[in-house]
């Protein structure tokens, strides 16, 4: 497959989108490298859909620069569309056609499509290939969406909330499939509501809040930028006090009910001291855990400002 993008798949500079008085996207900039899985996150109304629709060529931006596979998405051409695969949010396919018929029809839209049967296998619908789309479950239909999105063998795939409504095992299957796409060398632009999904799949993520980027980078960079720290938690033993334990671990201990919480940059030494102290005295620390902040914690930290849902249009 010819990769004419050499390095950068998407480049966005100071992108803006206004609807009347409302500025849904307020000057965001980022780049997506060829071959990476880029997670694009944000609460509802943050401007995610607007941004992705601009990059997909559905919407014309108000201001700023955008290059997708080296071309302006505001002027989509046929040759450009042949290199891009779309999996849209809330989009249905003709329920009366079978999986194979739909995928065959869409494959005919592209100059050098993937094999239809291979594509159907890749999305895990080999045993449903002759079933009509209308008879499939929600998760299976979503996989048909993915199949028609990638059957043209695109270089760049937009996946807009690909697993919304999936049960946990279907989500795992979808993740394997997306990893499979990445191994084929595709660049993937992923939006999702599930932080564990982004954490699992994305090489880098960007977090959008009210039309502005509040964080971008890999998980470590984002965690560091947000000042994210590890948390040690356990049930306070009856015979001890927060001050006692605070002096042992050399960090402040917060009590909430009988749950003690210690927040530190690196949990290794405090944990060693805490467990050593407990072992010596034969104390059992109920519910002991040390947690590194998840993307979800970081996301909530960065996007919660008591101003939910009125910052932009969906």
């Amino acid at each position, binding site marked *: 497959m010819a990769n004419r993008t050499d390095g950068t798949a998407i480049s966005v500079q100071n992108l803006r989108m206004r609807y009347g008085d409302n500025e849904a996207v307020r000057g965001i900039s980022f780049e997506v490298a060829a071959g990476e899985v880029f997670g694009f996150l944000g609460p509802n109304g943050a401007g995610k859909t607007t941004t992705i629709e601009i990059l997909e060529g*559905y919407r014309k931006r108000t201001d700023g620069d955008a290059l997708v596979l080296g071309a302006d998405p505001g002027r989509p051409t046929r040759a450009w569309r*042949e290199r891009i695969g779309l999996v*849209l949010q809330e989009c249905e396919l003709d329920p009366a056609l079978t999986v194979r*018929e739909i995928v065959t029809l869409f494959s*005919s839209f592209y100059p050098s499509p993937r094999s239809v049967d291979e594509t159907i296998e890749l999305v895990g619908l080999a045993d449903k290939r002759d079933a009509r789309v209308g008879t499939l479950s929600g998760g299976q239909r979503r996989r048909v969406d993915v199949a028609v999105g990638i059957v043209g063998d695109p270089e760049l795939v937009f996946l807009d909330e690909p697993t919304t409504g999936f049960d946990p095992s279907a989500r795992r299957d979808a993740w394997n499939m997306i990893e499979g796409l990445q191994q084929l060398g595709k660049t993937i632009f992923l939006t999702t509501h599930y932080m564990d999904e982004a954490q699992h799949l994305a090489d880098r993520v960007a977090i959008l809040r009210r039309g502005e980027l509040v964080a971008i980078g890999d998980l470590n960079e984002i965690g560091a930028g947000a000042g994210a720290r590890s948390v040690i938690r356990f049930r306070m033993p009856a015979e001890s006090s927060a001050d006692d334990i605070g002096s042992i671990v050399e960090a402040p201990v917060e009590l909430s009910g009988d749950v003690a919480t210690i927040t530190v940059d690196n949990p290794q030494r405090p944990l060693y001291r805490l467990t050593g102290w407990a072992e010596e005295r034969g104390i059992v620390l109920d519910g002991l855990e040390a947690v590194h902040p998840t993307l979800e914690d970081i996301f909530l930290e960065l996007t919660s400002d008591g101003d939910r849902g009125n910052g932009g249009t*969906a």
Partner: protein
Amino acid sequence: MSDVSLVLRQTYYGLKSTRRNPRAVVFALLFPVFFLVIFNSIFASSGSDVTINGLTIPIKTYFAGGLIAYAIMLNCFSTLLIALTTQRESGQLKRYRGTPVPSWTFIASLILRSLALVTVMIVVILILGAVAYGVDIHGEAILGLVVYAALGTATMCALGIGLSAFAPNADTASVIGPFSAVILSFISGVFIPVDQLPAWLEDIGKVFPLYHLAAGIQTALGTGSGTGLTGNDVLSLVIWAAVGMFVAVRRFRWEPQSARG
């Protein structure tokens, strides 16, 4: 693939989809045939004639012509109105927009599908009419019929596409599509001969294109010589086609109009 083969391929799958859609099969394909049988069974034995455009024609020919017009309205206007509204609101049109195929090929394939269904219906109605009820058509009438069928298909497709812009959802379109065809059929000389209608009702019917499509085809089939083309009916169809196209071009939308989550 060339654009023409893209249109043909989309038409092929569109026809497949239609064949598997019970509503489309019953409403658009079977109803006109049922009505042909029912009306002829009830009225044809009386052997009465109907006068249309100054021409007196046998009632069996009159029904065949009217039901061809009815079939054209169902397979073009009603089918396109429902299909486009459903596909727009469910995101299928938007999905097509995101592929490399030119958007016009999608619309062209829908029109071609309607044309194919109309052709089948005309053949079925004429053969059934000739074999079962002795409808007698002379050679030149076919030319007039073809002109009206083509013009009627264009007009009804344009109106279906145009009106889809105003249908908020698939449910509304599924009501407006078939029922407007049924109601107009009563006052356009399809279900009831126009000479049995009160003048004021016929005057209302005359405003709409189904009346002129039916009258045109009835005249073409019933005329003993010539093509039976009447300027009045042709003009009305052309004007309605222009209105439909104007609205379609101005108001057509590819994206769902209902609020999205």
